[in-house]
């Protein structure tokens, strides 16, 4: 009853010329469920809601999109759900790097992002290598040299071994032969508190986490973990510029759909999210969170999944993390 009402009002709006639906061979015939693997207020949830808001503001929406938080299993519940909805083109999900790393290390996580239908890669989250302002390390090389001189005594705070900060450490250690400790904390706040309190020496943080501390003169950026320098930190070299030729580990986010949906639907969503990602509302969201737009089409995103997972597998295996598949 409610759905019919919605479709009717959608049709009325379309007739009135208020909605500019994306023209394609396929269009959704009922409200779209947009799955986020974490609770309200979490990163993937805010990302999904910001996409929906941008669609609404630009009137790109053909109907209604409802964000659904399918929480549980550290992401596995949402991933399983996408597999269960095989062939349903009215279900979408936000994917993050976790969707690619979780099945590699967890035998229980049987739903693979590579089996689902990739729609788009939308944004990447850059990172900065930061130390305390009082720290003797002025450059990434200073830090690495100190770690080489005192193996295991120099420390980095970070997340789990599959997170980007841990992967960058593995690559840097393999590249330089230096070794330093990696102290895992569950939340970004605890990682930052450990760094500010001087209990660890370095952290690879997102600009939104570290930016204010840098501005207040409490932290110093010694390198950027990015392809190119960020506009906010024009003076600081990227790791590659600083002489560490390691491949960039990107932390990306985008949209995918269940496996086996029609090609026309893929076409439709790819177009919809392309337009959404170009909208001013979305650009503002990127700027607020200091993310970078990094559009990849459906086909390129599917390829990205494979290459990224391959890269991840190599780094994790070298770091001694047990792989499940």
């Amino acid at each position, binding site marked *: 009853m409610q759905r019919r009402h919605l479709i009717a009002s959608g049709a009325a709006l379309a007739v009135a010329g208020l909605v500019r639906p994306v023209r394609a061979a396929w269009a959704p015939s009922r409200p779209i469920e947009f799955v986020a693997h974490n609770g309200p207020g979490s990163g993937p949830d805010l990302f999904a809601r910001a996409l929906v808001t941008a669609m609404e503001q630009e009137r790109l929406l053909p109907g209604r999109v409802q964000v659904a938080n399918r929480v549980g299993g550290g992401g596995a*519940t949402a991933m399983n759900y996408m597999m269960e909805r095989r062939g349903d083109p009215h279900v979408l999900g936000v994917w993050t790097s976790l969707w690619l790393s979780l099945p590699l290390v967890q035998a229980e996580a049987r739903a693979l992002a590579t089996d689902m239908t990739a729609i788009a890669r939308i944004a990447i989250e850059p990172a900065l290598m930061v130390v305390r302002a009082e720290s003797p390390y002025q450059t990434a090389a200073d830090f690495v040299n100190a770690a080489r001189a005192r193996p295991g005594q120099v420390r980095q705070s970070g997340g789990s071994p599959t997170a980007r900060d841990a992967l960058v450490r593995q690559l840097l250690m393999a590249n330089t032969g230096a070794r330093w400790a990696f102290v895992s904390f569950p939340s970004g706040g605890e990682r930052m508190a450990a760094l500010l309190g001087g209990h660890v020496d370095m952290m690879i943080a997102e600009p939104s986490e570290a930016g204010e501390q840098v501005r207040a003169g409490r932290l110093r950026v010694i390198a950027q973990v990015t392809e190119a320098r960020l506009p906010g930190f024009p003076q600081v070299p990227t790791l590659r510029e600083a002489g560490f030729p390691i491949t960039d580990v990107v932390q990306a986010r985008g949209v995918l759909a269940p496996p086996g949906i029609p090609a026309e639907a893929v076409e439709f969503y790819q177009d919809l999210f392309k337009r959404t990602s170009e909208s001013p509302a979305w650009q503002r969201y990127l700027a607020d969170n200091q993310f970078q737009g990094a559009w990849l089409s459906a086909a390129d995103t599917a390829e990205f999944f494979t290459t990224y997972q391959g890269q991840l597998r190599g780094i994790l295996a070298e770091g001694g993390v047990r792989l499940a598949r």
Partner: protein
Amino acid sequence: MDILGGLGQGFSVALQPMNLVWCVVGCFLGTIVGVLPGLGPAATIALLLPLTFGMDPTGGIIMLAGIYFGAKYGGSTTSILLNIPGEASSVVTCLDGYQMARKGRAGAALGIAAIGSFIAGTFGIVALTLLAPPIAAFALRFSSPEYFALMVLGLSLVVVLGGSSMIKALLALTFGLWLTSIGTDLFTSQSRFTFGSSFLLGGIDFMVIAIGVFAIAGVLESIARGEENTPLPVPSRMRDLLPSREELKACRFAFANGSVVGFIVGVLPGAGSAIASFIAYGIEKAVSRHPERFGTGVPEGVAAPEAANNADSGGGMVPLLTLGIPGGGTTAILLAALVIWGVKPGPMMIIESPQVFWGLIASLYIGNLVLLVLNLPLVPLFAQILRIPLYVLFPMILGLAIVGAYSVSDNVANLMLLSAFGLLGYAMAKLDFPPAPLVLGFVLGDAMERAVRQSLTMSMGDPAILVERPIAAVMLGLAAAILVAPPVLRALRRRRPLGVA
């Protein structure tokens, strides 16, 4: 920095009619969210966040802070009336609150919770106003070895929390410690005790366990005892629905204890208000002249945890506003909200956005008062719920417990876990195992394991790091004293002649 001037400016902002309205709206919403089990303040703030985008940042953050504070107030209501913890922080309140309700003192317990919340909430905000920068510096000196010591201190409270048999208390505690290890291990990304289930990769939610072993098990136990036809004593005189002078007098130390413990634990990122309320309750029982009556419905048993979880809110604001570090889920969303409004939380906030900073702090004072005024008149009303015959009330409790456990993550798998923990709680009650140590182990175990492994990574495997730092050493000493005190006191007492108290 001129605190008085800033605060004056803050009150002039917070007392603007529109901001006052947002404050009341936030407090009201927060109270409702607190009363409903499962739906927590973090999720509510996230869901309401888009509505506040159009608002002026000061008004918006004032409303969201009202929700944050209000949820802690409301959390005690279902704990006391129905034995269903409304929030993770009010689990401990069930222990004595529900027993008070069964003795006809529900109104008194609710009143004590409201008054304790007001006193401790105000204490937390005053401490936030006066001491924020030095306290934040203290919080940064806390690292993994100190957290380990804090968790050991918390676990040592099993001595006072346990029932008649220490062996049974320790078994329950160990089981709680095991339950908390289920899920994905942060340090290796490997799964533990998931038995092939992908749902368990994320671990078990604390609320599911608490609702199971308290609410469900409590109802089963009452039915087994054939209580469903005995009406609960609910006083008819208005005066008997509020705390008596003696009850309030008995809570004086509990209010102070809860305020201080709650604030200190609240300041530490990653400790959590459930830990604060457990520690405050444990201390209260340890220093009490009649510890044996705890768990049978003593007012101090309600006052200490409720005070602690409200002082914790003020404490949690310290790292958020002075360092830009969120201590928990709710403050993390407040931080996201501030960023969206263009306010940059962190060391520069007080300089660059003094209006928001002081407006927020002033609104916390006002919000606390609003919450007291809002909640006290509701006390007699809520107490009337217990006039409902138990054979009607029990199905309602079960229904609310199921809704609460489901809304934790909108997942049916949680309902199966809820049933399992309900049955477990019932079996434990039948076999005279106390449920509190199990919950204590679950709350502290995860954080303690992390702290040990972090510390050992920092020291390259040398365990001395756990005891050689001063703050950690003091806390471990306290824990040792708590563990050793009861047998020593018993031995001393035995030497004295009988008849001397």
